[in-house]
């Protein structure tokens, strides 16, 4: 175990989030069991009041999740000096088998939390709170995931040994290692470029369409488009955007771009990208509830707005990525 302030902070944040959710779970059970919107009984009034606590709590946990995912990567990057062979976050995350799963789960939890907040927002605008039971069931279902996240982080940090020789981005994302990441990195710049811009244009068009039309078809389509564009964007960052930032034809790394050496350019890419993906995918999922009578007005308005956010964020992302490519001195394609 490496005893470091950032690690303690991360573990503290994860355990407090989990603890808060666990303490809240009996109340969530009560809501599921006794919710009756037509009743004016004091118990129902109490339950309704509890829902305010939950949405505040989940919003808080969601915020913590975003910050701790950032801190996690940031910290991994800083720790890389301690491991032979590690040059950036990739190396430090690779020190044992829990590093990357812990990161992936954190990102997944971020998307889940934003989705929950979107559902919560829709639900609290409908006069009969139609999704209340579903919401709290989802919350209960998420608790094991939060526990798993804490467990993975704990395993990862406990398993850090300074004398481990790890492999860093050079080998993980090099074109001849047999991993998925390296397959992606090995994409020829030209098809990768086409896929990147193609999927972004499709996603932006679909989201823009849904923004205007607010229909069911466009809603699902824009959700799928957002997902596809997210995957393609990550692949694009691996395959060529990072190369342009590093101005190096073989340095495929999604983390080094976050470093001060590269002026923290990665944050400019990831912030709009994650915002776009979260908004777009939430819009897609919310469409499922569009035909509930009391949500018939609420959901289209909300998904339309989310799709608008997704479209704008993807445009921003594409512009920033293009600007970085344009300003680079590297020439991949002629």
């Amino acid at each position, binding site marked *: 175990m490496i005893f470091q302030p*950032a690690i303690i902070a991360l573990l*503290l944040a994860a355990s407090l989030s989990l603890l808060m959710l666990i303490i809240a779970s009996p109340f969530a059970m009560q809501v599921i069991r006794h919710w009756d919107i037509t009743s004016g009984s004091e118990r129902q009034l109490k339950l309704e009041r509890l829902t305010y606590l939950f949405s505040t709590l989940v919003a808080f946990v969601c915020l913590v999740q975003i910050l701790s995912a950032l801190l996690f990567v940031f910290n991994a990057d800083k720790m890389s000096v301690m491991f*032979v062979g590690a040059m950036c976050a990739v190396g430090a995350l690779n020190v044992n088998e829990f590093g990357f799963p812990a990161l992936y789960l954190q990102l997944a939890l971020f998307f889940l939390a934003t989705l929950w907040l979107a559902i919560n927002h829709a639900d609290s605008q409908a006069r009969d709170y139609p999704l209340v039971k579903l919401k709290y069931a989802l919350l209960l279902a998420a608790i094991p995931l939060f526990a798993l996240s804490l467990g993975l982080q704990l395993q990862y940090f406990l398993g850090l040994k300074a004398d481990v020789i790890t492999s860093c981005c050079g080998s993980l994302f090099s074109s001849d290692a047999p991993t998925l990441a390296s397959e992606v990195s090995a994409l020829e710049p030209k098809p990768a470029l086409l896929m990147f811009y193609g999927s972004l244009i499709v996603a932006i068009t679909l989201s823009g369409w849904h923004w205007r039309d607010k229909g069911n078809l466009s809603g699902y389509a824009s959700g799928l488009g957002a997902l596809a564009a997210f995957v393609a964007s990550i692949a694009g960052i691996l395959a060529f955007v990072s190369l342009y930032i590093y101005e190096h034809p073989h340095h495929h790394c999604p983390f080094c771009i976050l470093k001060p050496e590269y002026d923290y350019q990665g944050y400019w890419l990831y912030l709009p990208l994650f915002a776009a993906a979260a908004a777009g995918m939430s819009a897609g999922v919310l469409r499922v509830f569009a035909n509930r009578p009391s949500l018939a007005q609420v959901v289209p308005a909300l998904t339309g707005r989310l799709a608008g956010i997704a479209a704008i964020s993807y445009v921003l992302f594409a512009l920033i990525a293009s600007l970085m490519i344009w300003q680079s001195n590297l020439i991949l394609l002629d």
Partner: protein
Amino acid sequence: MKIWIEKQKHLIDFTLASLARRKGKNLGLLFIYGLLVFVLASVALYTHALRTEAQKVLAGTPEIVLQRLVAGRHDLIPPGYIEKIGRIRGVQKKEGRLWGYYYDSVVKANYTFMAPRNMQVARGEIIVGPALERSRGLAAGNGISFRSYSGELHTFIVADVLPQTSELVSADLVLMHEEDFRAFFKYPEGHVTDVALSVANPQEIKNVALKLMDALPDSRPILRDEVLRTYASVFDWREGIMLALLSAAILAFGIFAWEKAAGLSAEEKREIGILKAIGWETGDVIKMKFWEGLLISLLAFLLGYIAAYLHVFHFGSILFEPVLKGWAVLYPSFTLTPHIDGLQVATLFFFTVFPYTAAVLVPIWRAATTDPDTVMRG
């Protein structure tokens, strides 16, 4: 969207007014909160600066230093020892170094005497570090005498003072000619203190060290990376211990914040009741309280951090030098290079704002959900 922004502006307006109306209570909270940030940030800034300083010291040193052991103790390296090593793959350069410690009883401090390879110092002259310049009042052209371990007095002329880049690196250095060095410490001709080896490829360092152990069983190779890591972990460990001790303080602070928020004054409760009765929604009250918490947190964080910055980098960390610094005796005074680190700010934010928010969440909710009809009943 415009309505939303306008509404948040109203809420912030109201929050500012209500903070101003309860000056005493809020200043108290701000003080405690800021104090917590100050202490934590001081620890973090201080250890971090020490760590970077140590890294700077080590950055200029060779990848491997080879010492010879006699009866388990560090001893001089005799002539011909280096040649015995022969050629090792990956080693770019190897050279013997001449250096030693000297205790100056006048100012009760240790100096590092050294005969540099990459720099010419004339016989009878020395170049000194800034610490000597200060403690002995030396300047270029002055003369100074040291009594060697054999009892003779040696007099040198100060040719130059080293620039003050990183004080830990060069503060106590005294550079002199090789012949002067040998005469001062009575080093036999051809003997050196240790051997420095430079290895270009970091992956090779371990192999080289293993081969050295093989070839010279009485030697001890010291790897720079290992020292770096040990340093880093020692500092982390100290910082960790400090923070762990302080987490008790954080906890106390959490309870304090809870009390403050839970024990809302009757006046405040009445206000929230009024707001709810005249048309504020529970969510609006929560948002208003959220802005209040955010304003207090940011202000406390900013004040605490700035105070800590001044404390560490301008007032020499007077408050806890004794706890954190191991080498205070060697370096009577040195200023740390100011440095702010993103990870550290983020970590501090987690240690302070996070517990505060978690502690006030439930009390705020409880206050915000007071019955709107309570104000109708005296």
